[in-house]
């Protein structure tokens, strides 16, 4: 179940103190909340689209809450990995706004295709954050039904999911499920590194040719493991879309409001039959690529510090404080909830049972296979041969 659906592009309910038309310092970057927590009332994208959001105080606070929660749960997962409870973790640290903004922009009927890092999107879809932890713990490889959650399984092979998303979106067209507010749309997540993969570019071709109702959401976190952006492109990534004949826009991925506005707009366009578009969420991976990675080998501290100043949560908090939308009690209460949920998560991770060894033979084929059945039987027999022995 997706979170509430506050409107985009509607009249403002709260007069924001600083109202500026047009882009920020970077003319290519759609931003509605500066790093200092200043609201920009509206901003015009490169194709002339005007982006604005107008939320109730309640809604603003709930954005903040989500940001804090996904960061805290993520930190807990990192800690669990350090303690040997997970085999690996791919942290979203720094990318909370891109994920919460885009994730909350999805409507209930929309379908998401994540990579391995979209824990924040998953959370915003209303999915229990325990769901993907089996994969990282090594007790399963996903194991959920994409259609039940309208959220595909995590995909590890870079870029593969963008074609799945495109095919799914073609199916929406074939089902005649576009053209109204109830129309369906798809969002495909991928990274800056993924833009080099053949599959991702093929998905651009297909989406364009079939006018697929979908949004390509690229979190440009500046790195593909150790490789900086310039190993993948020499121009801003959002401009790739123009080469395939659909719109592209770069949004401040550390600005949850702009991420929301741009994604909501693009999804709504798609569901109304206007085809695909590409969003480049310009952000930064504050932590390691995964818990196996050592970023000190390839990037300098000052770069990380510079991005620290653009932190997505700090700016939202500054905004809430300045605007007196939230007080210390609120912030304390959110922290409290985050702590509670992360403790709860930890408890449940520790309880995750190891799979029954012979279960590895299950679900190889919907209709089974005599070869697998035979191997399962032999395996059980083999295990039984140790029973009572010292093994």
């Amino acid at each position, binding site marked *: 179940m997706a979170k509430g659906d506050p409107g985009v592009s509607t009249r403002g309910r709260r007069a924001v103190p600083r109202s500026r038309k047009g882009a920020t310092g970077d003319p290519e970057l759609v931003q509605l909340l500066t790093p200092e927590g200043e609201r920009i009332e509206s901003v015009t994208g490169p194709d002339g689209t005007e982006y604005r959001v107008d939320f109730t105080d309640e809604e603003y606070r709930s954005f903040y809450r989500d940001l804090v929660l996904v960061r805290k749960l993520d930190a807990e997962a990192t800690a669990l990995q350090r303690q040997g409870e997970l085999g690996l973790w791919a942290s979203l640290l720094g990318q909370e706004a891109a994920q919460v903004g885009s994730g909350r922009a999805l409507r209930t009927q929309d379908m998401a295709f994540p990579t391995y890092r979209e824990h924040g999107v998953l959370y915003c879809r209303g999915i229990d954050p325990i769901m993907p932890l089996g994969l990282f713990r090594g007790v*399963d*490889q*996903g*194991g*959920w*039904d*994409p*259609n*039940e959650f309208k959220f*595909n*399984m995590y995909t590890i*092979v870079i870029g*593969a999911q*963008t*074609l*799945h*998303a*495109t*095919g*799914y*979106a*073609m*199916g*929406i067209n*074939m*089902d005649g499920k576009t053209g109204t507010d109830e129309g369906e749309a798809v969002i495909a997540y991928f990274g800056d590194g993924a833009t080099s993969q*053949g*599959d991702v570019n*093929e*998905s651009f*071709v*297909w989406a364009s*040719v079939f006018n697929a109702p979908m949004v390509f959401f690229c979190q440009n976190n500046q790195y593909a493991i150790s490789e900086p952006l310039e190993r993948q492109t020499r121009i801003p990534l959002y401009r790739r879309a123009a080469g395939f004949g659909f719109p592209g826009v770069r949004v401040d991925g550390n600005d949850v409001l702009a991420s929301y506005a741009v994604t909501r707009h693009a999804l709504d366009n798609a569901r109304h039959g206007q085809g695909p578009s590409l969003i480049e969420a310009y952000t930064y991976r504050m932590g390691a690529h995964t818990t196996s990675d050592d970023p000190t080998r390839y990037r300098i501290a000052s770069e990380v510090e510079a991005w620290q100043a653009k932190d997505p949560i700090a700016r939202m908090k500054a905004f809430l404080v300045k605007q007196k939308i939230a007080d210390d009690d609120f912030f304390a209460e959110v922290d409290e909830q985050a702590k509670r949920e992360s403790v709860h998560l930890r408890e449940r991770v520790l309880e995750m049972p190891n799979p029954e060894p012979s279960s590895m033979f*299950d*679900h*190889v*084929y*919907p*209709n*089974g*296979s*005599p*070869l*697998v059945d035979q191997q399962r039987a032999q395996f059980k027999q083999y295990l039984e041969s140790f029973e009572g022995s010292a093994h």
Partner: protein
Amino acid sequence: MATETLTLGKALNAGMRKALENDPKVVIMGEDVGKLGGVFRITDGLQKDFGDQRVIDTPLAESGIIGTAVGLAIRGYRPVCEIQFDGFVYPAYDQIVSQVAKMHYRSRGKLKIPMVIRIPFGGGIGAVEHHSESPEAYFSHTPGLKVATCANPQDAYVMIQQAIASDDPIVFLEPKRRYWEKGPVEVDQPLPEAYPLQAARVARPGTDATLIAYGPMVRTCLDAATAAAEDGRELEVIDLRTLAPLDLGQVYESVRRTGRAVVVHEAPSNIGLGAEVAARITEECFYSLESPVLRVTGFDIPYPASRVEEEYLPDLDRVLDAVDRTFGW
């Protein structure tokens, strides 16, 4: 029951037509499958009759074909993908082995990918490079995929329907050099249950040695058996039909009787299906074997220029030579 005489290609066409009629979720997609009906005309007329939402001409990108078909399958469709030639399936290899084969497992059974990947395969048509490959070992070695092939119009007609009706992802290899061979097809018999796909069948009974083949080589083996019979040797010919998982019960039964077996395929020998069949026969029939299981296959070289392909491909003489060797062991 109505029996028609159809070529193997027309039988496939008729089978797909039935599948399109019976299930609105079936869609056919690939390069040139629409107006052209595919370069072999196997989808001839289907777009005309079912429209371009059911029979989809795709962009020229095999990974795209399979990858988007995965997405369609997630949404509940049953995509039947045509790969134009065997040698052009490799751009889609990643999507096939890492996605199609694994999504059911990855989802612990919650997701099905009921996809058929049709590939004309094998040589013998005088084609240029990349148009005569036999990639069956690659797919058969991949857990999560099933692999099937047909050797005559009747099987083509039934098996393609079974493959489409099955929830398993199936690589369906079509013996392209046999597309034009005619045979009787019972066109309105009820479709046998989708699973199991047609098991191995005895294509010709015999007593002296067992020939094991599939797809295009079944005809070659039948011809070899006819020739051998003239010399007084009765060869049993078994058509495997399903290559993964292999159904070898009948093979074992046969080899226990004959004591001699020759496996025949076009693909290179090294780590081909013949190796697996030989290894399993040896395990199962160790004390019945009068000679080791021999293999007659393509050589371990790239598929050669077409003017020498006849020398590359197993033929009647090479099959009989191997049979002779099993007797001389």
